[in-house]
């Protein structure tokens, strides 16, 4: 029975794969072309890089909710019970030196990515990832200890960036819509949001590694 | 909202509000609860009195509230509704008095009286329902409100009885629901109209209409304990005596019988039922139930069980009366709705007294009970004689009209059924009376709980209600021709139902 179900599922999946391939190979061109719309409105978006414009202006609301998803994942960890911290003293002797050298460079890279996001590939998410990686490196080098589950600092940092985003979204309701930037201030708003976000996201991502149950 | 809309609501509220209040009362506040109960019962009787006078004068009392598009909650007080309303309102007062005495030291009285009042609320709703939708709402509410009463004692037998009761009534409810929605779908509405829905039903496939009729009658037939849907009633007698009174006389089986009346007269219309060819089968089923119930009663040693089978038989008199085409049978059926209630409640009160005072539960333990408890036994005898149709009692009036109705409808076999049933009634009641009055008393009673004080054989509150209802059994028989007697009222209803038929 079990084996039968298994083979049936594999058959069904194969059929699905075939149908999907067939479907995309015969697809007529799409009637709506958003790339053109993005290009047409890029000038008033506050940034010159189209992906950033979509991410933080045209579809900024998606990004807003997505930050909440990241926080929820962290909350889920807290709810389920944090893993214990790794045993200390097993680090590679070279790690602290490496970390001390690399971390400043990584921070620099993050700032660059954040700044670059306005007009070329990069932005808050990539910057946050680099920052988080720096924090993890510090942690592995045992320079930065694990965060206990009631640590205030990381929580404040995570909440702060998101609350800033929320405050801007709410304040802009005066313009008649969530996150509806006035064109002349769009750039400033986006920079503000992205700076807040990169810290918030970085701490959030780092917390996946650093937030550990207190040693029993 | 004017007074004519308000009055039906007030009748509902006069037991619904006390029910909700009683639920919140702590167990110890006996006085407050008693006061509330009596206040509610008396208020209701006064309200019903006002309605009686108004309806007789041709006043219309109706309340309408839209629940869904095209579906209204309707309370409509017509003569038929009032027949049932006043029966229940009056008997409720006595049952309440009786229950207060009966449950004097029992636990969980707040819960009991809460559901008790809720039961009566449901009965009022059933009586005053202006369409099948409303009828169904209160019909199911009655099921729900009686279940906690049936299982009130919490014993394994009570649990079993309650479960069987639920199984029957919930399935019955489901059938009824299916019938009602189907009818609503076919006819567009389910309002009760004198003479039936008429045109709304014409042009519909008769087979479908027969099926719907079957569903509807089966649905209400469960509560009316029509054979073969009667199985729950003998099981439910494990409930405390006031609850049995409620089930057998005031509320549950009456709700079923009343439903049959509404469906036959005011949904399909008696003439249309005749045309569909389902009137005769209904009469036959009723006749079978009458005989079957009486036969089974004959073999029960448990007193309450014997009474339960007797109820099965007697309630179908109402159905039989309804199924006899012509006003005489209708009058017989309707008047029996009231008369059976008064007589049967007397019997259950008395059975409760025997059980509470002396611990008598079985017919075989009845020897000499008449000497120890003469008043109760007297009341019991009157009730039993009434059931047999002895002259000057309520039973005689109903049976006379039913027989006339059968003759008028050309269904002479029904007369034989009635006669046979009367003989059977005598066969299962007379031995009880004989034992109670003429056999010597045993040395000790099974379980004597209440000692006699002078001529007062048991507690006040247990004694008065059966005495009153026994008196009423004779009263409605002797004064059957008085202005507000049940008979006069049944005649009024029949006149109005058949006027719309042009008879």
């Amino acid at each position, binding site marked *: 029975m079990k084996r039968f179900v298994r083979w049936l599922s594999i058959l069904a999946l194969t059929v699905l794969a075939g149908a999907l391939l067939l479907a995309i190979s015969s697809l007529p061109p799409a009637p709506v072309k958003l790339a053109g719309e993005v290009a047409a409105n890029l000038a008033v978006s506050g940034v010159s890089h189209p992906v950033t414009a979509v991410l933080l202006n045209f579809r900024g609301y998606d990004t807003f909710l997505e930050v909440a998803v990241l926080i929820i994942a962290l909350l889920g960890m807290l709810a389920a019970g944090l893993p214990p911290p790794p045993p200390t003293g097993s680090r590679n002797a070279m790690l602290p030196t490496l970390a001390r050298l690399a971390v400043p460079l990584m921070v620099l890279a993050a700032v660059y990515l954040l700044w670059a996001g306005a007009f070329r590939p990069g932005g808050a998410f990539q910057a946050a990832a680099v920052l988080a990686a720096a924090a993890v490196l510090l942690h592995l080098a045992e320079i930065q200890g694990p965060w206990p589950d009631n640590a205030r600092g990381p929580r404040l940092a995570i909440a702060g960036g998101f609350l800033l985003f929320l405050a801007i979204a709410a304040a802009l309701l005066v313009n008649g819509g969530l996150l509806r930037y006035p064109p002349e201030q769009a750039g400033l708003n986006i920079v503000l949001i992205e700076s807040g976000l990169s810290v918030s996201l970085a701490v959030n991502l780092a917390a996946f590694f650093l937030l550990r149950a207190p040693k029993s | 909202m004017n007074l004519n809309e308000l009055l039906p609501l007030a009748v509902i509220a006069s037991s619904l509000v006390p029910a909700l209040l009683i639920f919140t009362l702590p167990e110890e506040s006996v006085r407050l609860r008693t006061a509330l109960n009596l206040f509610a019962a008396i208020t209701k009787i006064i309200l019903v009195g006002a309605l009686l006078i108004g309806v007789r004068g041709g006043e219309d009392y109706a309340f309408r509230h839209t629940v869904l598009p095209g579906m209204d909650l309707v309370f409509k007080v017509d003569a038929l509704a009032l027949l049932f309303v006043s029966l229940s309102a009056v008997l409720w007062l006595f049952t309440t008095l009786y229950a207060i005495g009966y449950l004097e030291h029992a636990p*969980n009285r707040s819960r009991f009286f809460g559901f008790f009042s809720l039961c009566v609320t449901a009965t009022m709703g059933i009586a005053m329902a202006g369409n099948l939708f409303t009828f169904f709402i209160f019909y199911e509410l009655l099921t729900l409100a009686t279940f906690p009463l049936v*299982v009130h004692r919490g014993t394994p037998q009570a649990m079993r009885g309650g479960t069987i009761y639920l199984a029957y009534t*919930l399935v019955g409810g489901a059938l009824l*629901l299916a019938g009602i929605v189907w009818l*609503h779908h076919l006819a567009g509405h389910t309002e009760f109209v004198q003479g039936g829905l008429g045109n709304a039903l014409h042009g519909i496939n008769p087979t479908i209409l027969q099926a719907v009729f079957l569903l509807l009658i089966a649905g209400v037939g469960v509560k009316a304990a029509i054979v073969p849907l009667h199985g729950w009633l003998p099981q439910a007698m494990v409930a405390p005596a006031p609850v049995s009174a409620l089930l057998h006389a005031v509320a549950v089986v009456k709700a079923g019988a009343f439903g049959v009346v509404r469906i036959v007269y005011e949904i399909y219309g008696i003439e249309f039922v005749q045309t569909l060819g389902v009137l005769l089968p209904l009469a036959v089923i009723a006749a079978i139930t009458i005989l079957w119930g009486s036969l089974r009663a004959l073999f029960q040693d448990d007193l309450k069980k014997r009474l339960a089978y007797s109820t099965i038989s007697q309630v179908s008199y109402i159905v039989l009366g309804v199924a006899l085409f012509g006003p005489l049978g209708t009058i017989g059926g309707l008047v029996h709705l009231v008369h059976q209630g008064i007589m049967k409640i007397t019997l259950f009160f008395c059975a409760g007294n025997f059980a509470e005072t002396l611990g008598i539960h079985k017919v075989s333990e009845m020897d000499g009970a008449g000497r120890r408890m003469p008043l109760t036994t007297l009341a019991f005898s009157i009730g039993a004689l009434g059931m047999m149709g002895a002259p000057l009692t309520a039973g005689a009036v109903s049976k006379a009209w039913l027989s006339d109705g059968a003759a008028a409808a050309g269904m002479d076999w029904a007369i034989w059924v009635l006669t046979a049933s009367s003989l059977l009634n005598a066969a299962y009641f007379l031995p009880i009376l004989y034992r109670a009055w003429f056999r010597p008393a045993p040395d000790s009673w099974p379980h004597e709980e209440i000692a006699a004080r002078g001529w007062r054989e048991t507690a006040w509150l247990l004694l008065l209600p059966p005495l009153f209802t026994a008196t009423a059994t004779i009263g409605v028989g002797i004064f059957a021709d008085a202005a507000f007697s049940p008979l006069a009222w049944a005649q009024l209803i029949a006149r109005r139902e058949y006027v719309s038929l042009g008879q």
Partner: protein
Amino acid sequence: MNLILDPLAWLILLPLLWATLAFVATDRYGPRLAIAGLVGQLLCAAMLAQDVASHGSIGHLAGGWAEPLGIRLFADGLSAVMLLLTQGVALALVLYARSYFSQATPPAFWTLTGFLIAGMNALFLSGDLFNLYVTLELVGLAAVGLVAAGGGAAQIAAALRYLLATLVGSGAYLFGVALIYGSYGTVSASLLGQLINAEAPIAVWLAAGLMLTGLLLKTALFPFHFWLPPAHGGAPAPVSALLSALVVKASFYLFLRLWLGPFAALTEAQPWLAQLPAALGASAILWGSWQAIRADRLKVLIAYSTVAQIGYLFLIFPLFGTGALALQAGILQVTAHGLAKAAMFIAAGTLIKVSGSERVLGVAGAAVHLPVTLFAFALAGVSLMGLPPSGGFLAKWLLIDAALDQGHEWIAGIAIAGGLLAGIYVFRVLRLAFRVTIADDEAAPLRPAAVLEWTALALAAASILLGLFAMPLINLLAGVTR
């Protein structure tokens, strides 16, 4: 109107705000933030419903960009009903939870609850398929977090199974969105409603299939229900209530929206498709009821009842004929079940808390020492059985009526049979409650806090009263276009 007080926007912002604050603040402030926030949200939902009732549907351009470039939020009668239900039930549950968790709150409970509600509100208000994906994840992950709360092995197992199911569900949904975007170049639901027609390419059919199936998985429709009983039966009572009453409805809502909106042309072109969800719904009713009848633990019984009750929601799909009956039946069922199931779960929570036993048998004697809670349980049961007067009854009535109207008598039969099966499992509990227990003679068990009993009763009473005052809800739905 004052733009900054736009109730639609605040329904999303408020819960996010208090959830984030609860994340930073200590547990002591969690309940206060939640209650204050939810009172505000309830107000917003009422205002929004008022607006919808007078203006029809209301749009809100996030970022000020019109479709297809931007995301358009919108509210019509359907969303208004869901929003009202969500805020109302959540408020009662939060009040209950505050007392229920008075000794120890599971970690992150308040903040997760806030994010969960935010996610649902965002879902009810979104008109953009990709944005809806994000809200789905928001709801799904927050719900998983709540299930995991407490961290016992049973909770973790339930959470893991739930997580995998919800991730596969949203994964399939996302893949469908990708195909849709590839086919039309937009993910705006309203635009797609105009673009998609019966001659749509295969990719669109596949997309619809994947998205709808993914949502069925998240809604736990039979046979995708396997994750629900452990998750809903194992979580703390307020969480179970939140999940059973509201969370599964969110993905159902989306299913319904897609069915009636973007994919309407597809489902109308192939009417037999509608039989599939109905057939699964019927199976769900039978299977879920059967499992509830033989469940050993009280909360598992209630969870299986949810499996069965979800089935009713899917019976409506073949019945969208010319009239509005099917939609009314579906939404009444959503509302009535939401209220009743929340009441039942928290009543069960109180019963379990007092008796100390999670088994159905633990209810014995509750009629004596926990009358209010038991009464709430019974009223909720009345609505679940579809007995009058209750919202569940009206839903069943409309469903049967619609079934007869559209000539699908078997659906009417299933609805009636399902009510009887529900009667068995509800009365299985109720009759036990009346059983006299030996424990009665001993010291009475401790009485729970009043708020635990009365919140359950309030929710149950609401599900009953819905059976008498359903017209406002029906009127709200009148403006919902197919």
